């Protein structure tokens, strides 16, 4: 399941809704990405812009790849957009499987892929001005790692 929304999310409620009634799930992993303050300045806000329609399509595509590659019972991706304050939650990935390895690996796989395939752009506003965040080569390298393994 995927959701793109402006609203915040509650990981406990999301996990309960996704896995609470299931008896075949032995492992649940979640990842939460948050707005981090700058290393050399005071961040006042981070605004996430996205491409409505394509974002949902790409997240669904990434989720389908994870379900095909790993032995999973359930997955959830929630990604926020709009203006967020430092410390705010940005993204939630939950993976649930019978055993822990698939859940751990699929969670990392989903985050690595969505960093480079989901059309979001981050604008940082701080005491130094406003800056569009640049893409990191490390994020591309992280995705390449999965391609080498497949």
């Amino acid at each position, binding site marked *: 399941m995927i959701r793109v929304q402006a609203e915040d999310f509650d990981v406990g409620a999301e996990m309960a809704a996704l896995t609470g009634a299931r008896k075949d799930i032995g492992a649940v992993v979640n990842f939460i*990405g948050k707005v981090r303050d700058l290393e050399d300045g005071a961040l006042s806000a981070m605004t*996430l*812009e*996205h*491409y409505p*329609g*394509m974002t949902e*399509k790409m997240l669904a595509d990434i989720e389908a790849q994870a379900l095909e590659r790993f032995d999973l019972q359930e997955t959830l991706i929630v*990604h926020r957009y709009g203006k967020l304050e430092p410390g705010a939650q*940005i*993204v939630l990935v939950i993976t649930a499987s019978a055993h822990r390895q698939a859940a751990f690996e699929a969670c990392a796989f989903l*985050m690595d892929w*969505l*960093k*480079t*395939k*989901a*059309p*979001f*752009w*981050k*604008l940082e506003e701080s005491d130094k001005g406003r800056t*569009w*965040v*640049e*893409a990191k080569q490390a*994020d591309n390298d992280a995705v390449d790692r999965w391609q080498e393994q497949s």
Partner: protein
Amino acid sequence: MNIHYFAWMREQIGKSVETESPPAHIDNIDDLLDWLTNLSPAHAEALADRTIIGVAVNKEFVEPGAKLEDGDEVALFPPITGG
């Protein structure tokens, strides 16, 4: 043809979407980028570095040489930074 821009490309060009009718011989993304670059100084500035421009047609990523059809929805954007 609707052309969408995102992030700083949108800011430099000054709009998030524009409807353009390029001539018929513009039938791929590379040629479209050449054509858009000549529309205004702002377009030229925003589209100057071809190596970093991401392209989607009908909400799917494509390569710069990809073919275009009438009515395609094109999106041009800087490298994505989600997650």
